[in-house]
């Protein structure tokens, strides 16, 4: 299932996939895979993404 909330939160911060990937220390393809719903990140990566986007886990990853 696509993670549209991550995509919109990233767009709201005006970050590209590569910029967000650099901020959280992963590859661009990993961010792309999370947004497409092809990969379920670990809680550590979820937290790192939320911190980079100034969001909570609920905002981005909770159904």
């Amino acid at each position, binding site marked *: 299932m696509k993670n549209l909330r991550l*995509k919109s939160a990233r767009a709201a911060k005006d970050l*590209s*996939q*590569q910029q967000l*990937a650099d901020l959280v*220390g*992963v*590859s*661009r*393809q*990993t961010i*792309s*895979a999370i*947004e497409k719903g092809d*990969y379920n*990140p*670990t809680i*550590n*990566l979820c937290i790192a993404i939320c911190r980079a986007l100034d969001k909570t886990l609920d905002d981005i990853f909770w159904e």
Partner: protein
Amino acid sequence: MDILKIVSTLVLPIVLIAAVVYELKRTLKYTNFDERQQIVRGRAFKYAYYTAMIFAAVIIVLEAGGTTIMSAVVFAGLQLYLSFIVFVSYCIFKDAYFTVSEKSVKGYALMLAGLGTINLVGGIIQAGKGHVMENGMLTKDCLGLVIGVSFLFIAAEFVVKKFLVSREEEE
């Protein structure tokens, strides 16, 4: 001194040493695969292992049936390169071959293409002389062909992947 001897005694060792130094520097410098890449690489190792096992099983069955198609050296070489191709191909297509810090793959692809071409040319020359198969068995001279084809295949894969990535619009 024919061209093959010049290549094998002068050029090939230099290219191989350069490749080993490049790979060692790369391995020491870049170690940071992200969590998705580590999972993919684990899967790639598993598939490479299965490949090696299936290849061994096929050869053992053939051997048990009285058909010997290669020596132990050729078997070891082919098994190694088949597994290598499976591992590298899977990692490349799942974006897990290069670490997070590595941006440019051009030099690596060029090095593989160079090594592949040198080995392929050597292998074709050996095949032309009829050294690849003797008495119905593959000789170790076939390994040059295998290395050449596998390296060129991987180099081509880098090009295809780069093309696919460039087409992929960042959403």
